[in-house]
């Protein structure tokens, strides 16, 4: 089992004929993902790398192939259109990769999604991968993952890869790794993913990787304290970040007391999470917590 994706995931790739879209589409196929279609307006009727049919629009692709998830490589200025097009066509899982989507565009997309059945992951995220389901809907290096029973949810891409490689090196596999993205407005937050992991019988422990900015980690802490039944190992990046400065990610900026790493670590610790003090110790902490059960 896994969360958000499974063996039944039928993936569509928006922007499949672009350089990045094409490259990552092939990596997804290699990993075992069932890539059923691509969409590039004006390129309908062609085949991408001799294998995947390309359509002009998402609704057409969904009708013809039964795609139920989409991975969007459309550049940031056009991402709003691509996300809404996918939601309008009823795609259940929408993953938007591009960094730099204007925040008001994201606001409009999230408003459009309200009351619809589609779930958005991102924007500005690496996507998600389930080594157990052999399904990769994202840009992470597939080779570092091992199937197993640890879930990972994170606001950062490379820091997730770092965590996963520490886990795999210790022989600890992952059930699903979900990158929720580094923007201030995102479709799926920590609590949403924790709820899914809570119900997933094949996940024993969750690693939560947060960073400065906003209060999503505190909301996660409140949920963990109240409802979460599994151990949580957490790391928050940015303890040394100065206030008021954007640290790369649009959402990583300290604007008030709740946004600091210190406040987030405290909330998570109070909720019973195993707070990792150094990024090098994520893997060994998971090993210790699993061993102590």
């Amino acid at each position, binding site marked *: 089992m896994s969360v958000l994706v499974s063996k039944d995931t039928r993936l569509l790739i928006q922007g499949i004929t672009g350089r990045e879209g094409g490259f990552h589409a092939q990596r997804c196929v290699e990993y075992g993902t069932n890539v059923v279609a691509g969409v590039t307006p004006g390129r309908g009727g062609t085949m991408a790398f001799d294998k995947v049919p390309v359509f002009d629009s998402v609704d057409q692709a969904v009708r013809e192939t039964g795609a139920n998830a989409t991975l969007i490589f459309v550049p940031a*200025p056009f991402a709003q259109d691509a996300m809404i097009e996918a939601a309008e066509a009823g795609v259940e899982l929408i993953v938007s990769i591009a960094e*730099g*989507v*204007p*925040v*008001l*565009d994201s*606001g*409009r997309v*999230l*408003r*459009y999604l309200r009351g619809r059945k589609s779930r958005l992951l991102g924007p500005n995220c690496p996507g998600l991968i389930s080594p157990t389901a052999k399904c990769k809907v994202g*840009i*992470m*290096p597939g080779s570092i993952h091992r199937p197993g029973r640890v879930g990972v949810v*994170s*606001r*950062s*891409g*490379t*820091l*997730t*890869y*770092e965590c996963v*490689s*520490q886990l795999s*090196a210790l022989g600890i596999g992952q059930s699903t790794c979900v990158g929720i993205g*580094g923007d*201030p*407005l995102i479709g799926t937050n920590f609590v949403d993913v924790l709820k899914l992991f809570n119900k997933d019988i094949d996940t024993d422990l969750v690693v939560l*990787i947060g*960073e*400065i900015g*906003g*209060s*999503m980690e505190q*909301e996660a802490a409140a949920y963990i304290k109240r409802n979460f039944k599994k151990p949580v190992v957490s*790391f928050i*990046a*940015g*303890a*040394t*970040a*100065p206030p008021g*400065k*954007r*640290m*790369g*990610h*649009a*959402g*990583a900026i300290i604007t*008030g*007391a709740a946004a600091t*790493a210190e406040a987030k670590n405290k909330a998570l610790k109070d909720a019973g999470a195993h707070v990792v*003090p*150094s*990024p*090098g*110790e994520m893997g060994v902490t998971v090993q210790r917590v699993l061993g102590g059960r």
Partner: protein
Amino acid sequence: MVKAQVYAGGRGKAGGVRLVNSPQDASDYASKLIGSRLVTHQTGKEGVPVHKVLVEETASVAKELYLALTVDRSAQGPVFIASAAGGMDIEEVSAKQPEKIYREGVDIAIGLQPFQARRVARALGLSGDQAKAAGSMLTAIYRMFMELDCTLVEVNPLAVTSDGKVIALDAKVDLEDDALFRHPDLAALADPAQEDPSEAQAHEAKVAFVKLEGSVGCLVNGAGLAMATMDLVRRVGATPANFLDVGGGADDEKVVKAVNIMLSDSGVKGILINIFGGILRCDIVARGVVRACQERSASLPIIARLQGTNVEQACEILAQSGLDVFFATTLLELEAQLKRALPTLRSANELSED
């Protein structure tokens, strides 16, 4: 009033805003400000250059209010923030007296409704014509926010004058960098001199960079890993000189630029490379670092932790470069290498503090 026009708050306390009594006074003070650097609590010790001043009529203020429009993360859309406790630090009011802050969320699909504007005016303690005037201002602020892709419009103070007028005495507007492609006219107004010079260069090179005060130059891919790397540096007792995310799709040229920006800071005593290469190839990073160091004849110690695509090639390039390189494969090893190199990595003033 003469007010320095800079990209920073806290001008009043720093001497950037002054009440003057004659045209001569105004001219004298304006000449003094223009061409100077203003240091406020938001600028860092270098300050920011003053190129322009605003000269305006002095208002006789009866009441100072606060009004802002921003994007709220939990509401996932625009939210007005209003307080009758204006003129002061709104962060402080919000921390100490949260009941004095009123929030009105706007549905991005339908926009600000008149009843909402009336509610905000009431929260500001305004009625009658003053409430109407505030309502028009709210409508105008909302329109500006949406049409120009702002992330913040802050009117502080929003003043009620002694003759009963409602005016914006001061305002701060943040435009979203990521939306400037829709507003080339606004992009053209940017004054790069207001930024730290190395941050301005980084902006141009499309490298995410923030200058800090420490002595270890950090070259990392990914914002989260870059922050975690800074945290690691601090943990061993050294201080990061910068945040730097070179990005996933960096080429030779971009890496060279990034290293040059990092090394333009004379406080840098050593270089830390932490790359988890997926799309980004480690050999490209290694080649870029070596080239930049050779071009500058920089002989700083390098601690390199490279993982992922083409890591063997990268290590060979670094090992044969003649530069002083120490390798690590995991973050724990990186931490150990940092500890070992600590004496050379600490800045002069950090050493004198011991």
